[in-house]
């Protein structure tokens, strides 16, 4: 199997889906001629032409809203928000419209749009190019939110998102783009949206996380394995709606649970994970449910000192894992 970077996996998913289905097209700021500011849509303009790799005006609500209209017609738009931080002007279109179209029309209409956006920090992006925004949308039935942690998952889940008949938000960690590499099949494959994935089997402590933090947890787990601490790592992959069954199973497996997110702590995805566990497996727990997250400040600062203080990393994860194991 060829080895690909995370962003190559994204690009190849887009390309293959566009080859497979004429209705698939990408739209967004600089996605055409330039091939995207991260080059995720590189080559699509040349291969598929101006309209299927459409440079839009700088207007996120229109990118989402025009995409929603095209999706209702029967196209398969893949809209790009240049940075996840800039999805905010499109919130009304996403929450009030995309998420509610099937429901409000009693199944008469549907909205098969995919909205991709690079999220996350550790790239000197400062307050507005580093954020995790999933929590804003993770209370909106009708939406699905996918956040893959590996090139393999990125490709298989992006294909699934594009083929899904409902709106999917697809957040890609921008630091993962070139940092993470992995084997990706050349054949067409899709992975199931809505299913978490065990990334490491273990028996001492359970880590539940998603996105780039999966990578940090795996790194930390290798180190802790040398000390005889055996971590079970569940990758949520779809952060909304959550895979309750997998969460419950993973929590019960070890009875000691650490939840990790790069986002601010209060009101994050892992709050819901904690709530599910405390609702369903309270008596299986041997330790309080631990949460490791960004501090509750608006977003990570630019200066390296403060960025590092905010940003998740393997050391912070390792420390929290060890503490839990020792509980």
């Amino acid at each position, binding site marked *: 199997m060829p080895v690909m970077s995370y962003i190559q996996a994204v690009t190849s998913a887009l390309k293959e889906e566009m080859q497979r289905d004429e209705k698939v097209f990408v739209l967004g700021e600089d996605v055409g001629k330039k091939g995207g500011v991260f080059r995720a849509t590189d080559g699509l303009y040349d291969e598929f032409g101006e309209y299927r790799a459409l440079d839009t005006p700088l207007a996120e609500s229109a990118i989402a*809203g025009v995409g929603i209209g095209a999706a209702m017609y029967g196209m398969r738009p893949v809209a790009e928000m240049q940075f996840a931080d800039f999805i905010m002007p499109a919130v009304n279109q996403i929450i009030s419209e995309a998420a509610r179209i*099937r429901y409000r029309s009693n199944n*008469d209409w549907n909205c098969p749009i995919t909205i991709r956006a690079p999220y996350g920090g550790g790239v000197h992006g400062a307050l507005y190019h580093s954020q995790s925004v999933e929590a804003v949308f993770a209370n909106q039935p009708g939406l699905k939110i996918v956040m893959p942690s590996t090139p393999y998952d990125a490709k298989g889940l992006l294909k699934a998102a594009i083929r899904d*008949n409902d709106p999917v938000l697809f957040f890609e960690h921008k630091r993962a783009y070139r940092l993470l590499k992995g084997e990706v099949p050349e054949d067409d494959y899709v992975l199931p949206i809505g299913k978490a994935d065990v990334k490491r089997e273990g028996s001492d402590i359970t880590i539940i996380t998603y996105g780039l933090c999966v990578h940090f947890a795996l790194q930390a787990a290798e180190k802790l394995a040398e000390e005889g601490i055996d971590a079970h790592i569940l990758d949520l992959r779809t952060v909304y709606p959550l895979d309750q069954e997998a969460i419950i199973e993973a929590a019960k497996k070890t009875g000691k649970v650490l939840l990790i997110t790069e986002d601010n702590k209060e009101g994050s995805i892992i709050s819901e994970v904690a709530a599910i566990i405390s609702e369903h497996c309270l008596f299986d727990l041997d330790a309080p449910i631990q949460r490791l997250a960004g501090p509750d400040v608006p977003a990570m600062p630019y200066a390296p000192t403060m960025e590092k203080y905010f940003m998740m990393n393997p050391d912070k994860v390792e420390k929290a894992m060890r503490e839990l194991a020792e509980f």
Partner: protein
Amino acid sequence: MSTNRHQALGLSDEEVLDMYRTMLLARKLDERMWLLNRAGKIPFVISGQGQEATQIGAAFALDREKDYVAPYYRDMGVVLAFGMTSRELMLSAFAKAEDPNSGGRQMPSHFGQKKNNIITGSSPVTTQVPHAVGFALAAKMEKKDFVSFVTLGEGSSNQGDFHEGLNFAGVHKLPVITLVENNKYAISVPYEKQIAAEKVSDRAIGYGMPGYTVDGTDPLEVYQVVKEARDRALAGEGPTLIEAISYRLTAHSSDDDDRVYRNREEVDEAKNKDGLYRFEAYLEECGVLTEDAKSNYIKEIDQIVNDATDYAENAPYAEPESALKYVYEE
């Protein structure tokens, strides 16, 4: 008979009678809904009274088989013209399971019916503008010969989505017609406190498209401008912005008391210029509408409205648990 205005536009007598009948039907259904609301039978009405001429003039200029419409909540005239039935409208007013718009999930006048090319709408105003642009983009990409048509109130033209949607359409010369139904108020707020432009159509130039302001109480004037816009759109010449000026003859909705913010003289004056009755007079004048035909229409419509009301009133609500359905594909 000398050529009259509608013949000059290429409209047959039959067609204008059909327009008249649809306007009258919209008005009568609307009036009935207010009665039902005041009788405590339906919780909410929001009304198109005073805007039927705009809506019917526009809808008849479209290809009602091919074109897609994204109407707003006052557009009963548009959806009737596009094939929604009186029963269906009443089912929606009563929030019954059989309502094709939403199965009783949405408030009345939140239209949507795929088989009739009526795009599902919501309450937050102006979100439908980018949607219509998206349909037009699909038309261009797929090389289909339809246009999309979207309406909104003049107050709603101050939302960001209006600007973003129209500019997108302008840049890509998409076949979309935007009709602002300027009824002079956004709930209580009059035009001059809403919009700094003299005319809403003054905004068109900022989106590189032609803009027109027409008398929205005259269905033929609206017909003509929409027809021309549609021709341009199909010829690849892109979008058009149209403002049709009318007046909101009722309160904003059944929850509103408009006496707080506008005086009766103003309303009465507008009632004297009611487009429905002026069109009626026009058709009578040019001999297309006879006394007999008119009373037949009135009788027929009365029956239709009664039937729709009875049918809808007796229809069942959706089961409580059906609230759980259709969040995602099933």
